[in-house]
């Protein structure tokens, strides 16, 4: 430990006090996932042939497009929270842990953004 004051030696080493918030968000997004993925499973079963014409026409409608957009947000958020726990449980080198969590944030925010862009393009008729 350093030669700092008593408070300086322990500052930042205790609980971050973000645990309960993380835990709750994991549950909130889980409920969102349950509702929205049930819709997706039902849609996949009802759509039948998932060919280009029927699938793109489906997501061009307002309600399916909205549901898919919400699903992307809820699922990517939930995945980010879950993988963060996995990283924190198994990666103990501070630098590697930080790097992986940064990578996780980039990948999940980027992935969700790409998915949302695709849905918007389908919904607003930009596709060829």
């Amino acid at each position: 430990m350093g030669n700092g004051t008593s408070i300086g030696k322990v500052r930042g080493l205790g609980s971050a006090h973000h645990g309960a918030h993380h835990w709750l968000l994991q549950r909130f997004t889980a409920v969102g996932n349950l509702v929205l993925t049930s819709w997706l499973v039902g849609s996949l079963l009802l759509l039948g042939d998932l060919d280009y014409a029927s699938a793109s026409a489906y997501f061009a409608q307002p309600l399916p497009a909205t549901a898919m957009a919400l699903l992307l947000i809820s699922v990517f958020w939930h995945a980010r929270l879950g993988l963060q726990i996995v990283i924190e449980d198994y990666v103990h080198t501070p630098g590697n842990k930080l790097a992986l969590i940064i990578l996780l944030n980039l990948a999940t925010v980027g992935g969700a953004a790409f998915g949302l862009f695709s849905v918007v393009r389908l919904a607003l008729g930009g596709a060829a």
Partner: protein
Amino acid sequence: MAKRPLSPHLQIWKWGPHMLVSILHRVTGSGMALVGLSVLLWWLGALAGGPDHYDTFAGFITSPIGYVVLVGLSWAYFNHVLSGLRHFVLDVGAGYELEGNKRWATALPVLGVLLTATFWALMLFR
């Protein structure tokens, strides 16, 4: 030695169904996050990209490897949903009685496989 409960021990333990459910929850969740979300994004991106891109996606996902991925993902989904619901029960402090806990932990992985089979039966033989 008096007959009394021993504390949980770090090295002396045996596998129980609740441990399987716990690790499967983590494995299926991580698998869906890494593989499932990639497939989801590819599907949506290919839809947004137009018929040519969609053909490329459909060609892969309807290949034998594609079906293995899809069946695996659907199993991971149903298994994760069931163990997730179990988490909600445990979160409110219920379901810790040894017998009931073991019964549900044994039943859920089986139920997950049954739901997966039902899903594919509906999907393929409508």
